[in-house]
């Protein structure tokens, strides 16, 4: 099968998955007894008001009818109106997604660079002190609950040392740059506001580090294992026996070939960053999709719940697709079928 056919087939599958996730979440949120109108109006609202609200949001109709109406809406590019904010869900998603994407990307960069460096050092120094320290650090990283780590960071760097800002993307007294991409680092560069860029970067440090903790740990573990496999191969011995400098052997011959499993885990990590993002955004008051989704879940804001889960599913599946395509570039032996 050619690459193009493969990508087209995977994209179709991706649509199916997103549609499946939408259906799953839709039915769960409709079938199960939690009542969004009660959540919105409180327990003591008059009965006629409750009825009126139910009719307004179409909740009085049979579930199947609600579902078909929603699918029809979606096919017309309409994600519905948020019950909490009264705005179009699509409008909300477009507003909040770039902040999450930006944070997740910075987090992923730290994870990949940190994870690979730690993993390579660990493998090359196998059994030595550096290896033990790196392995314990990695296990700590994958065991650390994100919300606890975020609070500890906040306690140390904001409350005690006062080195970093405690939340948000910019200080309250600073007007954000003209919105072009919705990503504050890029927008401030476009507006040629280096001062704002530096300040925004400072706001990134804690959320991005918190977010990447798991990623660094997961990637370093896989890199270490994969490097150890590769370092035992014949061609590495050949490279050494040719008299190549050890650094060159490690970086050019071993690392490149050890990358395949690392790419897989990096894709998973990027997806997991979205998950961690939910918590990190809540704690650091980051105006992103994660915080939006959490508030939607808490308020049982159905259109927002379904909309945000769909975007997350789409992003997650796209990442998996990118990973699979990257394989072909890294390993010419990989065939798509």
């Amino acid at each position, binding site marked *: 099968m050619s690459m193009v056919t493969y990508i087209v087939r995977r994209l179709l599958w991706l649509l199916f998955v997103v549609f499946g996730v939408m259906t799953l979440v839709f039915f769960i949120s409709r079938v199960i007894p939690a009542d969004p109108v009660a959540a919105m109006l409180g327990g003591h609202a008059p009965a006629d008001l409750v009825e009126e609200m139910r009719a307004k949001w179409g909740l009085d109709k049979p579930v199947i009818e609600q579902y078909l109406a929603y699918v029809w809406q979606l096919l017309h590019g309409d994600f519905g109106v948020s019950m909490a904010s009264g705005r179009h869900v699509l409008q909300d998603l477009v507003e909040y997604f770039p902040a999450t994407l930006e944070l997740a990307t910075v987090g992923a960069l730290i994870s990949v660079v940190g994870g690979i460096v730690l993993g390579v050092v660990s493998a090359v120094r196998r059994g030595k002190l550096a290896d033990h320290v790196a392995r314990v650090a990695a296990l700590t990283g994958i065991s650390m609950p994100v919300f606890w780590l975020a*609070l*500890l960071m906040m*306690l140390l760097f904001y409350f005690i040392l006062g080195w970093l800002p405690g939340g948000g993307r910019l200080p309250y007294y600073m007007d954000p740059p003209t919105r072009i991409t919705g990503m504050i680092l890029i927008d401030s560069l476009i507006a040629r506001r280096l001062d704002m860029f530096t300040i925004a970067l400072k706001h990134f440090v804690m959320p991005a580090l918190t977010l990447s903790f798991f990623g660094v740990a997961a990637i370093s573990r896989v890199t270490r294992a994969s490097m150890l496999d590769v370092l035992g191969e014949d061609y590495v011995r050949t490279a050494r026996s040719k008299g190549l400098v050890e650094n060159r052997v490690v970086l050019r011959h071993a690392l490149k070939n050890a990358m395949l499993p690392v790419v897989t885990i990096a894709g998973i990590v990027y997806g997991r960053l979205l998950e961690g993002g939910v918590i990190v955004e809540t704690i650091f008051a980051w105006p992103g999709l994660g915080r939006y989704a959490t508030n939607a879940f808490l308020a049982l804001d159905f259109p927002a719940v379904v909309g945000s889960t769909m975007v997350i599913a789409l992003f997650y599946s796209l990442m998996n697709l990118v990973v699979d395509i990257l394989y072909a570039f890294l390993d010419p032996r990989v065939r798509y079928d």
Partner: protein
Amino acid sequence: MTRRAHSTSVARDTWRAVKGNPLSLVGLGIILALALTAILAPYVAPHDPYETNPLAKLGRPTSIHPLGTDQIGRDVLSRLLYGARISIRIAVQVAVISGTVGTLIGVLCGFIGGKVDSLLMRITDIFMSFPQLILAMAFAAALGPSLQNVVLAVSMTEWTYFARLARSSALALRGQAHVDAARAMGASKTRILLCHVLPLTLSPLIVQLSLEMGGIIRTAASLGFLGLGAQPPTPEWGVMVTAGRNYLPASWWVSTFPGLAIFLTVLGFNLLGDGVRDILDPRLRRK
């Protein structure tokens, strides 16, 4: 191989893997300590975990309250000890529900094959193409936040891992000689499934379970932290962390200690899992 011989060999493999790995022993120690804490909580907790004391709000750690008191004067240590019961309860219940459901579905798929198999596997694909915590949040929100619903919500995201693993074991077993022999002797499909296939799929599943435990506890605590899980005044660790958030930095102990408890528990399971994981890897097993 008889069933008993098989299960003892799994136990022996597991013990050997753990024994040879000092970090796994540490993990085992942490988990045993946690289990002991959960069992003994009512006897060793210095105070009632629900008893409030307006005069001792946000008290620093002292000899009476070794880990301080929270925003309504409850003893943090006692709540922490009782919290161990909740964490273990959640982990065990999720493991039993998702393990049973997932294994049954997986074994059935692998054994029957055909359309049922491909449909169910596509469903697991959909579940797995989604970040677990967010799926659990969706389930928990829809079910309504409560301790029992956390168990349901996490189980609904967890079963797919067991289904996949059980399916692949069942597929491998389907063509084996002892299954053919049972069939030739006229055993019914149900009997073959229950007596000749299911028992042999269990050992990798048990190992998988130990690998999933840490994640289950962390997901449940995250739901509690976000307000979508256990609700106050339940002494669940995630809920306790969230309650203390507003009292940082002055009363750091309110959320720091429960967070530490979650971390140590997850670390314990991950350390143990690191040793046990090798059993699943046939390359390592042969060595």
